[in-house]
């Protein structure tokens, strides 16, 4: 077994016990990336010197007998978390050479827990996409089948974990950008409750939806990663002032007997691949065999989640992305006058999907349309949220497929924006309601000639991450999903 195959907890324990050094592990992963990145394209920036410098300081700490939670373990960081002194672009041409003068709170927390910055991972431009194809640095390939997408927008973070190019990584989820790629790559991905992780220093897409989360190859590692990155931050007024929980501890202390699992009938509908359904049914059966109770529930406004999302998110994006004017940082394309410079900069700096969303946002926010589109979508968002509140009066957790199908081919949906948007059909409602959701590998299936992983989504009430991760852990023990071989 190679060092780069170690999981997060495993590696942290070995480093702490001085069986391996952080420097050895970091070198092993850097070599793995060098060998694999040409093919997978999971990383857009790797700074060997910084990684080895951080590893060295972890090794010093170990020597001094002063290890922290994840001391010395190298991590992949989605390229929208600002990392001080290390290029951060959100995979947009408009942020090409942006070197943040400050560190995001999520990464600050990770470094304070002993993490090592391995590199910045590829993503859809400004996190707008479900296939990683809108990245300025090119699409990421799914390690399970190189002709397929790893999903998006956190495609690089998911692929890096699946392909053993890091033990764990950060992602961000605005409408499914952690859960969908986790499902497509056979990894565990958790998006916590809105507010659990600080948004400070995270390049903004849609501020009322953006939430950081984690990827790992097993539930315990995802829990440990979430614990290391979350927490209250006075620099983010929407961050939740609640203590950090030790999510990774006592994961097995969970009684399935009596657990009430809600199955929303609106999620088990046409368009759901029958083989996906079969796999999800098996997962449910595993739980009922152990004494869990299944309750059919209804989330009646599910159908309207994707359209509501595609009004709310672009409207917030149009406002957030107005800051990119080429004056103080990022790309500038000189024009004849100030307005011309703005326009040339933005026209060259943004990709097509980002432009579409800015224009849709400005349409729905313009006078005469504001009430019919934007306010209407906000009212529907309230109804979608209420659906969940009502459901959680009856059940403890909701199970659904994470996506209607396994990973699709690169280029497969790029021509039709609405088809691409529908890929988020099972994940956006959770985001609109701000609830925690995770995706765990549930099985594999034959799909268009490939053998691909399928994810089960678990949704819980606000701030129920601990319960959710324990449920996911129980699922993992019963499923025995075999991950990709290194």
């Amino acid at each position, binding site marked *: 077994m190679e060092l780069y195959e170690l999981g997060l907890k495993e590696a942290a324990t070995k480093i702490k016990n001085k069986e391996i050094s952080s420097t050895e592990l970091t070198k092993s992963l850097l070599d793995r990336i060098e060998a694999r990145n040409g093919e997978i394209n999971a990383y857009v920036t790797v700074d060997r010197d910084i990684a080895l410098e951080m590893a060295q300081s972890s090794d010093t700490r170990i020597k001094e007998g002063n290890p922290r939670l994840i001391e010395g373990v190298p991590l992949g960081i989605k390229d929208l978390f600002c990392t001080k002194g290390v290029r951060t672009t959100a995979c947009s041409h408009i942020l090409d050479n942006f070197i943040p003068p400050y560190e995001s709170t999520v990464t600050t927390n990770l470094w304070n827990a002993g993490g090592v910055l391995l590199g910045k991972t590829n993503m859809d431009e400004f996190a707008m996409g479900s296939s990683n194809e809108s990245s300025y640095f090119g699409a990421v390939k799914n390690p399970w089948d190189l002709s397929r997408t790893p999903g998006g927008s956190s495609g690089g973070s998911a692929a890096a974990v699946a392909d053993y190019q890091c033990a764990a990584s950060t992602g961000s989820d605005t409408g499914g950008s952690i859960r969908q790629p986790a499902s497509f790559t056979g990894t565990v991905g958790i998006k916590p409750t809105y507010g659990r992780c600080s948004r400070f220093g995270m390049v903004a897409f849609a501020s009322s939806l953006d939430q950081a989360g984690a990827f790992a190859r097993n539930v315990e590692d995802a829990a440990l990663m979430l614990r290391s990155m979350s927490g209250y931050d006075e620099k983010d007024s929407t961050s939740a002032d609640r203590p950090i929980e030790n999510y990774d501890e006592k994961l097995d202390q969970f009684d399935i007997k009596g657990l009430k699992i809600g199955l929303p009938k609106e999620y088990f509908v046409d368009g759901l691949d029958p083989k996906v359904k079969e796999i999800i049914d098996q997962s449910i059966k595993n739980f009922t065999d152990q004494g869990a109770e299944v309750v059919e529930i209804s989330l009646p406004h599910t159908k309207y989640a994707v359209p509501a999302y595609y009004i709310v998110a672009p409207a917030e994006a149009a406002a957030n992305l*107005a800051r990119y004017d080429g004056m103080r940082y990022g790309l500038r394309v000189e024009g004849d006058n*100030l307005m011309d410079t703005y326009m040339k900069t933005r026209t060259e700096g943004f990709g097509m999907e980002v432009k579409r969303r*800015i*224009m849709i946002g400005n349409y729905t926010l313009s006078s005469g349309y504001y009430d*019919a589109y934007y306010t209407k979508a906000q009212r529907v*968002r309230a109804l979608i949220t209420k659906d969940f509140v009502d459901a959680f009066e009856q059940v403890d957790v909701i199970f659904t497929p994470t996506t209607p199908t396994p990973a699709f081919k690169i280029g497969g949906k790029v021509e039709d*924006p609405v088809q691409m948007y529908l890929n988020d059909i099972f994940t956006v409602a959770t985001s609109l309601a701000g609830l925690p959701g995770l995706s765990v590998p549930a099985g594999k299936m034959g799909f268009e000639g490939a053998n691909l992983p399928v994810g089960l989504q678990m949704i819980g009430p606000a701030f129920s991450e601990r319960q959710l991760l324990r449920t996911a852990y129980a699922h993992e023990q019963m499923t025995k999903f075999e991950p990709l071989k290194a």
Partner: protein
Amino acid sequence: MSINSETVNKLAKLSALKVDTATNAELCHDLGKILDFVSQLQEVNTDGVEPMASTVGSNITPEREDKVTETNTREALMQNSPKEEMGFFVVPRVVE
């Protein structure tokens, strides 16, 4: 819903984007399709439902103490400037 090229041009201007003729045609099609799709919301009865801007109740938003936390980071900030002179951002002429 059809979006005409005039609307696309207006949106481009609002968005500070330039749109050439070929892109304009493509956007007429794409934006029209997206707006058709999101217009489904009109069929939802939202009478008496308050618009929801955030999942975080405004009553729990904390206030921080009003004190200076940032030191002078001018040099670091200027490093990202596309055009700089003597520690100032150089921008196109603003007053005609």
